[in-house]
């Protein structure tokens, strides 16, 4: 019998991804951003996408390329501090941006992945964030209803994968990747290294194969993945 093998070509991996879909994208800054998948996605010339990502990368990088190319109608995110280009587009109403507290964004995504309807939290309860939120009382304290968040597609970046789809992340490149890998109908992972199934210690798998639908190899660690010289502190 054949072994499970999810490693396919980039063309197969992106098959069926359409305009108007919602797409989660892993990464916090450069580490963990699936630049290779995003580059291939950018070439598909889709539009009216909803993207979900911690931030918008920086101008000219990662999802910022898709946003700058007007492929994105809405961005669900936590912070755009390092991307003045997207901030300008937001201020000019060229893109709709929904902000959430970073950990609440993570919990909404995780709740989607965990098949929950939502979470209850007091984060932002005394702020303008609570304005449009349903508030209920839990043990005498106010809590906001934050709905679970799922997407049609998730794009994640792993340091290592096996052919069955088990993923391992490294260092701060883990971030949103494991929770997004739980929370989409089609989960596509790019990996820097793809090994034979069985080579990853079962105790050290970060994302079990059950969550991963499609797997591509990164042929080259391109410039985008490398250290950003502008963030290096010269001493």
């Amino acid at each position: 019998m054949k072994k499970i093998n999810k490693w396919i070509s980039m063309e197969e991996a992106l098959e069926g991804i359409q305009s108007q879909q919602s797409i989660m994208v892993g990464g916090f800054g450069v580490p963990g951003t699936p630049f290779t998948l995003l580059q291939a996605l950018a070439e598909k010339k889709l539009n009216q996408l909803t993207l979900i990502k911690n931030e918008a990368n920086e101008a000219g990088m990662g999802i910022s390329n898709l946003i700058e190319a007007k492929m994105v109608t809405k961005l669900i995110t936590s912070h755009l501090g390092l991307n003045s280009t997207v901030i300008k587009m937001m201020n000019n109403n060229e893109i709709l941006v929904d902000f959430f507290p970073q950990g609440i964004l993570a919990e909404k995504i995780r709740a989607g992945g965990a098949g929950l309807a939502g979470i209850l939290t007091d984060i932002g309860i005394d702020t303008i964030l609570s304005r449009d939120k349903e508030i209920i009382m839990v043990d005498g304290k106010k809590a906001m209803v934050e709905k679970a968040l799922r997407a049609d597609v998730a794009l994640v970046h792993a340091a290592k994968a096996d052919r069955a789809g088990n993923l391992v992340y490294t260092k701060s490149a883990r971030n949103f990747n494991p929770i997004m890998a739980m929370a989409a109908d089609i989960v596509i992972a790019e990996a820097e290294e793809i090994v034979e199934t069985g080579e990853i210690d079962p105790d050290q798998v970060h994302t079990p194969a059950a969550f991963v639908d499609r797997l591509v190899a990164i042929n080259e660690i391109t410039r985008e993945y490398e250290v950003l010289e502008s963030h290096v502190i010269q001493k």
Partner: protein
Amino acid sequence: MSYKNKIAKRAAEEILPGQVINLGIGLPTLAMEYLPENMPVMIHSENGILGMGKPCENGREDRNLIDAGGSYPEVVTGASFFDSALSFSIVRGGRLDTAFLGTLEVAENGDLANWIIPGKFSPGIGGGMELAQKAKRLIITTTHTTRKGEAKILKRCTLPLTAKECVDRIITELAVVDVTEAGLELKELAEETTLDEVIQKTGAPLIVPHDREASFPRF
């Protein structure tokens, strides 16, 4: 072949290559025996395993590795271990292709009651409610009747439900029955039984799509 083995053997045929499967408590050991060698399937166990294998060879049991029923399994190449929150995220998050569960009662609309007999039996809930409600396909593996000979397949469940309208297929030692929009449909007959016996032992109307008993696929 015991009725348990018969059910397990037929249940094993429901498992397709590449799927993520939960075999419930009790059935795993038996059903695993009937899976083709090296079948590329990922068996999920509620206690935090994906890629459970056959029961251990005697003497090779690992004190740190049990299945959700307490037995000692092997794991297959490509297995992973995780915590209980992630384990049920696989179930509730829509990543479980098929779950198998036993039952006390099952109704013609797919209602399932398998966790409590008020005042008599209630060892708890375990993972069954989540498996029943969230597996993409739910197959009930059960004896056709109780030990007293009472029907377990009913028009309506009399016991408190585990989940509503969740069952897709029922596999017993006598028959394979599907839950359809139109009602319960008889799909297969065991070699040892007759159409009359199955109809008589089933507590709800059966849609019988074949003219003659001889037309039924047998298992």
